[in-house]
């Protein structure tokens, strides 16, 4: 990929206490593109997003966003950087004590001194973009899962970020909401001229909308390429993942300390 990358992850490792999550990851997110990070649950995808957002500090290696090394920033500079990032959380993470309108207005009110009429226009524009202008006075508890996700999307792009991160945007959605969200991710990215990172395990939907895919397994990038390349790939891990096979390079069993028969017999008789 070209040198003009918004996010550059070099040799990144991260461990919780002594449990390694990521080991030596390299990725690049070019400007204006939508990049997916895929992998089975628990392989460190969300951790990668948190490292990009500076919520965690890497054990070694660096994350560079728009030329700045994230973990070396002090908290003021980090907050400055985060203002230019938007993030969609897995279940929306809407503020449940505020209406849809106030949720979208939250960041604008916190970070700018714009007059209320202007905020009104901005919020309604963002809500219109996700098709929920009519729902602006509802509370988050009154929304369906798909609608909540769309409101969260409107909130994530409220300040026109340069980088939008999506943490499992497709999890738990019906097929219609799913393709709406997929569509919106692509359209918002192109309309705002932003770059997007989608962390997901929904292969079919995301292969339709992304430009480039990284496959992560056990804390390592095991494959990367454009959607066409990956669909055609013969690599066993990619094949298992793209076509959803139960057993393969990713084992069905979580590794256990002792073999199955030994452990059962040991407990019964020991």
């Amino acid at each position, binding site marked *: 990929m070209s040198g003009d990358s918004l996010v550059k992850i070099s040799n990144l490792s991260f461990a*919780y*206490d002594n449990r390694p999550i990521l080991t030596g990851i390299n990725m690049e997110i070019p400007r204006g593109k939508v990049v997916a990070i895929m992998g089975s649950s628990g392989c460190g995808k969300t951790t990668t997003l948190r490292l990009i*957002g500076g*919520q*965690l*500090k890497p054990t070694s290696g660096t994350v560079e966003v728009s030329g700045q090394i994230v973990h070396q920033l*002090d*908290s*003021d500079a*980090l*907050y*400055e950087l*985060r*203002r230019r*990032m938007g*993030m969609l*959380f*897995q*279940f929306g*993470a*809407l*503020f*449940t004590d505020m209406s849809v309108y106030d949720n979208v207005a*939250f*960041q604008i009110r*916190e*970070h700018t001194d714009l007059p209320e009429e202007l905020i009104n226009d901005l919020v309604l524009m963002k809500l219109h973009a996700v098709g929920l202008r009519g729902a602006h006075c509802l509370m988050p508890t009154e929304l369906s899962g798909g609608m909540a996700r769309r409101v969260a999307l409107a909130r994530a792009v409220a300040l026109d970020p340069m980088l939008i991160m999506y943490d499992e945007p497709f999890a738990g959605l019906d097929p219609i909401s799913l393709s709406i969200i997929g569509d919106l991710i692509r359209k918002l990215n192109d309309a705002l001229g932003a770059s997007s990172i989608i962390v997901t395990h929904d292969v079919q939907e995301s292969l339709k909308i992304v430009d480039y895919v990284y496959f992560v397994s056990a804390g390592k990038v095991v494959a990367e390429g454009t959607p066409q390349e990956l669909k055609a790939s013969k690599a066993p891990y990619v094949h298992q993942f793209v076509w959803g096979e139960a057993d393969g390079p990713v084992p069905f069993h979580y590794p256990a*300390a002792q073999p199955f028969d030994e*452990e059962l017999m040991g*407990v019964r008789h020991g």
Partner: protein
Amino acid sequence: MSAMADSQKTKATGGPQKPRNSLASPRGTCGPAPRLAPGKSLPVQFLTHLGHSVTDRLWRLGFAAHFFVAVLLNSGTALRRFQLTIREIYFSGALSIVIILVSGLFVGMVLGLQGYDTLERYGSSEALGVLVSLSLVRELGPVVSGLLFASRAGAAITAEIGLMKATEQISAMEMMAVNPIARVVAPRFWAGVISMPLLAALFSAMGIFGGYLVGVKLIGVDAGSFWSQMQATVDFREDILNGVIKSFVFGILISWIAVFEGYDADPTAEGVSRATTRTVVTSSLSILAADFILTAFMFRGS
């Protein structure tokens, strides 16, 4: 803000092991190093366990102190945009008024009954007003309203912050470059600190009214001596101000414990429920302990 980043870093890299890790499942071998290692003798196991829980608590106390400083340092927003704090005062303070007033009334009425019964034996039942007001203003007002406030508002604050954490609202706020300690925690903390003395005052006033109802209206103690003895004996600095200081200290304790437990809760349903329980238990105990210490310094029988 830097304090917050620090505490996160410490959490990620070490610090106290969360209780979750220590809940060994009854079957099978869980984790690489089970805490009660088999093969060690019982006293050694006991001592290991004891040491572990003591150091855990010390770590938590350190975290709590660190958090307290972080809240104070990030209080600018809560004080500058005071409507944020006012909103929380409404939720934790104003909504507690009913329970405080009703309890105050009953406590005062009981004091009236019990006090009359005792005082009458010494023929000094006209001192009932003094007894009721002094016990309320010095002791029962701050302590009982503190206990009520801890279980009504403290528990609610912990549950709310804990659930905001569990549903990633806190993380979302951080990612929006809004410091959750300044925006969520500090307003709730200051709301508690401001509400508590006012609630204690309301409790005492209502209690005195309850004592009046029972003593004067029901039993028939002379109204004149009830009020005049009270006014002559209760000293503003010695009695009332000391009671206000107590309720202020309890307000700080309760709010601090409530916001810390909420912010520190494990982001699961179980974690939030445990944190809420801890808030009520810890703040009740600290109210009583602090009350003893404060009383020992304030009222020395002079």
